[in-house]
């Protein structure tokens, strides 16, 4: 594996390989074991957009493996504000680092970066496009919690139109054979190409507007944020957001072994009371970003 750009590039075998390696990284990710396979190596962490979990978990992953990190988060103190192209920024950082993690507001930025970099590029989110490492940690969490990646009933809930996480996840889950339900407010439905792909692969379950309609048969409730800025009328936003509130009453309606996931940040869509329920897995999911990204860094930099 050289670059990690899009979930479309990853075969089932490649995904399983990453997840297996990530499992082997768990003790080191928790600080319970030492693995310095990337000692002396440097990661270029260049984030043109805000990020908490992705950036910190990549930096933690690199540090846990004995490597160092250079880079920036936000462009205010960089030559980007002077009009430097992404191509030039990448050329420069690829001279300083052994791999580059890139987040950028434009779709296709990571693909462009591969053309100007001498070192591996890992896409940490490009606009509304791909975020493959989030998808991998989601799959890792699903396998960890459910024991398998196939034959599951997964309900994707919330803003399915603009949420890049759910697009990538839907494509990835469809590689394994699952039933995928789509629960979203009117106007924020899953884009046509994703729905067509699910239908074409025989994995489309139900499309509906309230989670109550699918909860009783759901193995994984994957919740995403409904963004206020998508609604011109704040009253309409509050009305819609209220219908997508995941609270203990709703979670209790699901099967006993159902899990609740969320890529975070959450705002109001999952009430804090759910956090204490055994179904809540979103903080474990956020932690899993570390072992998964450790595995990827070891693969692309260390050749392990």
């Amino acid at each position, binding site marked *: 594996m050289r670059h990690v750009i899009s979930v479309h590039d990853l075969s089932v075998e490649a995904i399983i390989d990453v997840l297996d390696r990530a499992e082997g990284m768990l003790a080191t990710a928790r600080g319970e074991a030492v693995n310095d396979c990337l000692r002396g190596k440097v990661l270029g962490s260049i984030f043109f957009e805000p990020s908490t979990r992705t950036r910190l978990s990549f930096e933690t992953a690199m540090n846990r493996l004995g490597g160092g990190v250079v880079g920036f988060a936000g462009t205010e103190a960089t030559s980007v504000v002077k009009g430097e*192209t*992404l191509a030039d920024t990448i050329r420069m950082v690829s001279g300083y680092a052994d791999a580059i993690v890139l987040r950028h507001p434009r*779709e*296709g930025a990571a693909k462009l970066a591969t053309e100007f970099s001498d070192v591996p590029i890992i896409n940490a989110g490009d606009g509304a496009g791909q975020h493959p490492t989030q998808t991998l940690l989601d799959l890792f969490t699903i396998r960890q919690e459910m024991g398998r990646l196939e034959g599951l009933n997964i309900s994707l809930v919330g803003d399915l139109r603009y949420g890049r996480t759910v697009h990538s996840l839907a494509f990835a889950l469809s590689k394994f054979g699952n039933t995928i339900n789509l629960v979203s407010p009117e106007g924020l439905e899953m884009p046509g190409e994703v729905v067509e792909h699910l239908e074409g692969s025989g994995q489309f379950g139900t499309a509906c507007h309230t989670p109550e309609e699918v909860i009783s048969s759901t193995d994984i409730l994957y919740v995403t944020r409904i963004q206020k800025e998508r609604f011109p009328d704040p009253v309409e936003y509050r009305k819609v957001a209220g219908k997508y509130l995941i609270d203990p009453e709703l979670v209790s309606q699901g099967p006993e072994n159902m899990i609740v996931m969320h890529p975070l940040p959450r705002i109001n869509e999952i009430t804090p009371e759910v956090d204490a329920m055994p179904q809540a897995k979103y903080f474990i999911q956020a932690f899993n970003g570390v072992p998964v990204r450790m595995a990827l860094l070891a693969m692309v930099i260390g050749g392990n």
Partner: protein
Amino acid sequence: MSHKYMKVERIEHGTVIDHILPSMAFDVLRVLGLSSDKTMSILVNSHSKKGGKKDILKFEGVELSAEEANLVALVSPKATINIIVDGKVVRKFNAEAPQVVRGILTCSNPNCISNQNEPITTEFNLVIDDGHRYVCTYCERDIVDLAKRISA
């Protein structure tokens, strides 16, 4: 009184692109990016013997390569290319949609990195499923309204 005359003169050497979708002749010219120093005839909304209307382009002294001719399929998939030598058709073939299109088109996604000031050439790949569509190599989105995305 019947007075026959030719709307467009026949050519001795060159290329005739026939069966262009009606009103698409100018888009074909743009996609080919041909310079205007050659004699060129453009027939728009001509009656087709097969019924309906079509456009026709004739280029005197220009022999299109298969690669150039295939670009025509981007905007008019059923066009036929006729190579004329000494007033006779010596080769006739259908334009075939190219697998990869570099340059020529711009991505219809305004947030695609290829629409920013970066030193790259646009690239689109043909996807054949229930039809022909082109997907941007960079943002992985389908190109929408292809004829309007010709940058030449």
